[in-house]
């Protein structure tokens, strides 16, 4: 055929429709923004009811996690995420969805080796690198403060 892999990759790139960056970006901004706004509203409500800032923040995170798990369980989260992309992935709701969707999916292989082991298959790297980055940041902060 006389076609090098490099030529073919060029051909293949031209034939493949590009991701809809503008539309995806706009939807991620709107839906991701709405989730954050919802969090902020809950936070303000709790504070107006006399709750301390740190307690209210924790409760906001918990309610968003609960909402995400509920939507995941009812099979709605992935439908929203298909449109929202990073808008549902980046907030804490994305993390809750990654854990709960894996838990539902691998339940059929049992509670220990299925649900228990595979629950972290997507969220695991976030924990590993999130905690590592936290430790690193903490060390730098300790010495250069």
């Amino acid at each position, binding site marked *: 055929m006389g076609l090098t892999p490099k030529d073919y990759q060029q051909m293949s790139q031209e*034939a*493949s429709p590009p991701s*809809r960056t503008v539309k995806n970006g706009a939807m991620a901004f709107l839906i991701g923004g709405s989730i954050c706004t919802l969090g902020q509203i809950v936070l303000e409500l709790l504070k107006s009811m006399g709750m301390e800032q740190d307690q209210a923040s924790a409760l906001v995170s918990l309610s968003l996690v609960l909402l995400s798990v509920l939507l995941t369980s009812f099979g709605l989260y992935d439908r929203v995420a298909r449109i929202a992309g990073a808008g549902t992935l980046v907030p804490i709701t994305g993390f809750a969805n990654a854990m709960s*969707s894996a838990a539902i999916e691998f339940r059929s292989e049992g509670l220990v080796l299925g649900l228990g082991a595979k629950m972290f298959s997507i969220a695991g790297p976030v924990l590993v690198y999130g905690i590592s980055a936290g430790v690193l940041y903490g060390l730098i902060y300790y010495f250069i403060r």
Partner: protein
Amino acid sequence: MALRKGSTLLLTQGPVIRSFAAVGSKMEGEGPLGPSFDLICEDSAFGQDSWEKAEASMQKKALDLAIQKGAFSPEEIDVLFAGDLLNQCISSTYGLRDLNIPFLGVYGACSTMAESLMMASLFVEGGFGELAGAVTSSHFCSAERQFRFPLEYGSQRPPSAQWTATASGAVVVGRQGTGPRVRAVTPGRIRDLGITDANNMGAAMAPAAADTISRFFTDTGYQPEDFDLVVTGDLAHVGSQLLLQLLERDGVRLEGRHRDCGLLLYDRKRQQVDSGGSGCGCSASVLCSSLLPRLLDGSLRNILFVATGALMSPTAVQQGESIPGIAHLLWLSAAPAGKE
């Protein structure tokens, strides 16, 4: 016996496709070929409690239907070639374990139907038996959890991604009898032009399809004009464009003759399948719900069925390897008019 020309085998006896059946689920039922399926099960779990069991049950249903439509009994089938996408081909082995038919498992990714049907045809052409079966399946949910993410995980698919069909197709090939005939087969060569994106399998498989189709025409001296259709499966939208470009470089012009199972099974405008369908069940069910019935009623006389497979392993892709593609070709023709 078969006559070898290059790497193409011309089957002089012409094994007969005696019966066939296609089974699908809700999405396939809502697609353009929905009404032609033998069975559409709206419940994609097929009454089972895991997706693997669902697929196994679907594959068994397809074979049961094909055996039933041909008025055969399972004991009459001399050998069965079957496969699917799952690790250890469990839909086939678990689904067909109770049938008591000599079983040969096959893996060719989405090309498995062409590979199984080719071997079943060669088996009867060689006189090793009277009847041989070929059956394959794929299931969206079992494939997603093995190759991608949990079903409820929120992710965005790029436009070049393909949708794994929840479908199965089964064919019974006989040495004698009436029905469409298998006239020639060209086993595919593995082709890898360095595509590493598992969300662009059409592009990974197109070079293999172009290679097999070109080789068939060179080996036999036939022209695209000698065939009503050249049906690939499942290059989908992206891969189909690339196939036509690659073939044109080889001087083969398919003009309006090319169809692709990944584009026939679903309506891309109405159904959210991105580039189109894929999976062992896609080409198998298009073959059994649309192509074979049309060969049987004579609205198609000669077609080339070229099922393509992305021989992808998630482990190899994670290790940075590219995706090898393969495509197997079968020349199918309508039963000669006025004979038999």
